[in-house]
């Protein structure tokens, strides 16, 4: 498996040293990733006085003062709800539009296929949150300004290319013969999709849905530009950065991070397959 393990047994000392170096590197890198999150959590799980005090303790006091202040702060509940709403809409829209396209790309050869792929890949070269600027005007005209659906539409432009490419690779991974076998066994195209392809693709589709949800949940710029009354959690936190006390910021940061940790954990099996293939 590893090059280290393949080295001749003649040099056990060097091999052992190599293994130690490997383990030490992994631990060091893990600490680099985890320690900052831990420190944020220490703050979130301390009382407001402890958060602003100096010097600080490196362990949480498990005082829920900061968190309850955050939850009861005017507008937070609504912002949380808006974040969930927008992310759910984004998830539905991007899978609803993206999965059929991914299926078409994986199963058919047709003129225009290359153009469509190019359109999808082109979104990569553009900083998509900037789209919020012109769309702000368009939304005011169409009455979509400051609505969850309006923001979800912008977030869908972020998530849709991923949904297309991920579902494309998912469907491509399911042999066409399974579908054809279903046709010869009496299925219509739709029945074959429902009875054979969907059950096999469902875990992957769920993972890409979670991915779309996360993209929307985390997005700051477009959310801040497009929402005023109906702010999402990120927009709320960004716009109150200047005036809000530290403990509010840290509790808010924790509220953003914890769902993200769960999302990444939920899709960990697909993370690499999704990104690896989606990014070729």
């Amino acid at each position, binding site marked *: 498996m590893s090059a280290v393990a393949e080295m001749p047994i003649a040099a056990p000392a060097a091999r052992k040293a190599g293994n130690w170096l490997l383990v030490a590197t992994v631990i060091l890198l893990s600490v680099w990733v985890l320690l900052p999150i831990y420190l944020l959590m220490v703050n979130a799980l301390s009382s407001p006085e402890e958060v602003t005090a100096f010097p600080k303790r490196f362990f949480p006091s498990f005082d829920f003062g900061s968190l309850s202040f955050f939850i009861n702060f005017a507008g937070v509940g609504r912002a949380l709800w808006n974040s969930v709403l927008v992310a759910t809409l984004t998830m539905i829209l991007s899978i609803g539009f993206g999965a059929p396209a991914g299926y078409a790309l994986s199963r058919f050869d047709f003129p225009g296929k290359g153009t469509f792929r190019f359109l999808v890949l082109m979104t990569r070269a553009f900083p998509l949150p900037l789209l919020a600027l012109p769309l702000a005007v368009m939304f005011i005209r169409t009455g979509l300004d400051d609505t969850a659906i309006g923001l979800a539409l912008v977030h869908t432009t972020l998530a849709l290319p991923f949904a297309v490419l991920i579902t494309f690779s998912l469907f491509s991974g399911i042999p066409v013969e399974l579908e054809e076998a279903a046709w010869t*066994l*009496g299925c219509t195209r739709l029945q074959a999709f429902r009875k054979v392809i969907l059950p096999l693709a469902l875990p992957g589709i769920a993972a890409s849905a979670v991915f779309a949800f996360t993209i929307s949940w985390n997005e700051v710029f477009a959310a801040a530009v497009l929402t005023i009354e109906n702010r999402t959690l990120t927009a709320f936190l960004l716009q109150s950065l200047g005036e809000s006390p530290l403990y509010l910021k840290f509790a808010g940061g924790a509220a953003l991070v914890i769902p993200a940790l769960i999302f990444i954990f939920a899709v960990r099996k697909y993370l690499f397959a999704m990104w690896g293939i989606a990014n070729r």
Partner: protein
Amino acid sequence: MAEIAIKQVAKRFGGFTALHSIDLTIADQEFMVLLGASGCGKTTLLRIVAGLETPSQGEVWIGGRRVDHLPPRDRGIAMVFQNYAVFPHLTVFENIAFGLRMKKLPQQEVERRVTRTAELMHIEQLLKRYSGQLSGGQRQRVAVARALAMEPDVILMDEPLSNLDALLRLEMRAELKGVLAASKTTTIYVTHDQVEAMSLADRIAVMHQGRIVQAASPVEVYRNPAARFVGSFIGNPPMNCIPATKTGNGSWTVAGLTLPGPKSDKHRIEFAIRPEDVDAGDEGLHATVRVVEPLGPHTLVTCDVEGGLFRAILESSAAIAVGDHLRLAPKADRIRWFDPETTNAL
């Protein structure tokens, strides 16, 4: 009763022609093998019969019904795929029952048919397993059982044995032959393996570059190849082909031997003979031995004849050494003559 008639079926992919106007009729209960090298169009033809591919032109009839515009499910066919296509999310039982449930058969009938075909294919102990827990050979059995359970008029098989190892392939081949003969369905079976084709087929259709070169019984295809391609593709080692020069009306000289042959206005044609159809003697083709390979019952001798390679399968008893000059006498009734331009038999 399901006779299959393929009428002037052609298939083009963009500028590439995969099939040139194919005509082929397969009788009810006949076992037809489509044989050819990869890319010859045999799988495309099978998929057109199945309805998985639309022909660019032509008609397909099954059991007296024109089916080329029908989807696969309405054609009364069942198919076994090269990679078996056993549904991984269903148990073996549900795999075999899949088509029956689509037909909305009563549960009792479904169970009866699944049990019967599972017994037939010796997989009754595997019914509760999933595809991931099965070996290649077992998956193959599930795929065949799933097709048989449909009690179809026609079974289509696309290289069903090619993913099995040699020993298993031999075993499955014999079993398939028995099971399919008993089921009395019409079968089209695609393979690139000539031995498989010879052993299974009632008739073999040899395909080459999108055309059927010859459709005949295995013996006929072997003995009387209709074209040079058939002679060289079937048989191992392949048929020998060497140039013949005209010496008179219906008389030809081949490597120093004068033989009676077809009447032709061509000056040069090709003489062809299978390696086992020559004997070493005092008369015959002038040959110089290059390689001698004793194979047990026979000896394979590769010679130089007229500057080209010529293989002969001779009695082991003959003492032959490299560099010997031999005279190889062809058996008169086994000689074939080919037109060098069209490569067809004369």
